[in-house]
């Protein structure tokens, strides 16, 4: 269980980007964060993974206060984060990255299994370097695979759909649904995709650094007005829900 209590984050120049977020991510459930571009979703994920340190507020993992832990310690505590924009490496291969992610000597078939979940053929990709020769969708899928390879209790995926083709996207949805049932971890996906919203247990709407709406899928989804005409922008509409 991951808990954020009144988390704020300011830029060095004092501008407040995250304006007091209270959030609970429960194990065995899929929470989807959505909201307009620039609303603060990635920033929130980075605060959870320790890439940014909150200006104020607290973060708890299973009742342990992890607010002051750095990136490495949070990773070791069980937080895994798939970046919105995967990092490229000159030299490191898919195999090496998966080994690092799993933290143990991974068997060949285990790696195949993980790559299969993101729709990649292990034989073809295992020894590829993670450099700029990989396509956008390929590197995105490998990014997702690194999080699947970890034995984490909180799994965060930042726009996993970005750049993924239609065919692979369906199997990715399957993977997320399986993750929910197979593992007891808490799943947090940041997404703009209706198909991902449709498999959510909880939906959280974030805009301008604040939670605008929060609740069960059936409750929140209809209020998002994603199919509505005109200005469906959720800004300014403070929907308070629990």
């Amino acid at each position, binding site marked *: 269980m991951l808990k954020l209590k009144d988390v704020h984050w300011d830029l060095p120049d004092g501008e407040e980007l995250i304006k007091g977020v209270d959030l609970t991510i429960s194990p065995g459930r899929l929470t989807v964060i959505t909201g307009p571009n620039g609303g603060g979703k990635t920033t929130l994920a980075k605060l959870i*993974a*320790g*890439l940014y340190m909150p200006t104020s507020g607290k973060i708890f993992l299973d009742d342990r206060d992890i607010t002051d832990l*750095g*990136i*490495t310690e949070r*990773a*070791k505590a069980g*937080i*895994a*984060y798939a*970046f919105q924009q995967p*990092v490229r*490496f*000159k*030299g*490191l*291969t898919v195999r*090496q*990255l998966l080994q*690092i*992610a799993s*933290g143990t000597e991974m068997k060949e078939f285990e790696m195949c299994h993980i790559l299969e979940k993101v729709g990649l053929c292990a034989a073809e990709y295992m020894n590829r*370097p993670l450099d700029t020769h990989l396509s956008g969708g390929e590197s995105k899928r490998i990014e997702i695979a*690194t999080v699947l390879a*970890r034995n984490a209790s909180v799994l965060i995926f930042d726009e996993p759909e970005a750049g993924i083709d239609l065919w692979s996207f369906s199997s990715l949805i399957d993977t997320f649904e399986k993750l929910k049932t197979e593992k007891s971890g808490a799943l947090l996906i940041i997404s703009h995709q209706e198909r991902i919203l449709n498999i959510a247990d909880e939906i959280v709407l974030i805009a301008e650094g604040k939670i605008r709406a929060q609740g069960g899928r059936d409750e929140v989804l209809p209020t998002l007005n994603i199919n509505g005409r005109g200005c469906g922008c959720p800004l300014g509409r403070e929907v308070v829900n629990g």
Partner: protein
Amino acid sequence: MARENINETSLAMLKEITDWEGLFDGAYSVRQDGSCADMQSTATIKIVPKTDNPGIDIYIQAGKKKDIVYIPACVTKSGVDDVVYNDFHVQKDADVTIVAGCGVHTTDDEGARHNGIHRFFIEPGAHVLYKEKHIGSGAGKGLRVIDPVTDVVLGEGAVLEMDTQQLSGVDRTVRKTNAKLDKRAKLVIRESLLTDDDNVAETDFEVIMEGEDSSVDLISRSVAKGESRQNYHSHIIGNCRCTGHSECDAILVGNGKVNASPELFAGDLDAALIHEAAIGKIAGEQIIKLQTLGLTEQEAEEKIIEGFLTGVE
């Protein structure tokens, strides 16, 4: 092989530089402290000691597929300054892997040096994979020096792939590689270089493409740590329709310094030459990514460097 001639220091270094598993299969010549410790020819690879200079001539038979020869050299004590001339005569259509490599070990304040001058005469259609690893070891304060010279003449359609690696512990090195390419000849060089402490490394390539449709691909990756310095120079000369690509990538750690000066000369309208160079510290986001996978900052740095140096392809 004559194990009794090979001392413990050499054995340890041979493991590092040739993945030696206790025995060389096929042709080999092991040089130790300035003389030949052991050698063996086969039906298809003849190794003949030179009479005028220290060194050997290696004759690799025409048309023979998938042959291999090992010619490592070790300097195992201070005060040795070994110069050796090795000539490779690779005959038409041969396909051979040559495993060279060199270790220098110091035992006191005097230096230890190996200066291997390797010439390759590669006849038309032959394919050579040349692998060399360099390493320095020993507690002696004397400088560990390796100065390799590689001179290559590639005949029509011949191919040389050269994998050259400086692993660690080499205080000073001047690495010179020259190559001349005939029609459709192809040269691929993958260099990886690690310097630390107050090591100084100089590396210099000159490749001349004289024959139509010849090509060179030169990739150099290096890491300069500690107070070490590196100087990279490459000169690719295209005098005909040909393609040349060079890429020099360096990572700085601590106070390491790198000077890279790539040079291209196109002497023909159809010479297509490209150079890419990048020098800088490890990208912060790379370290952060590996930290989110549970590595400490230092472990992340080590993994990135290891991948960078071994992942030259």
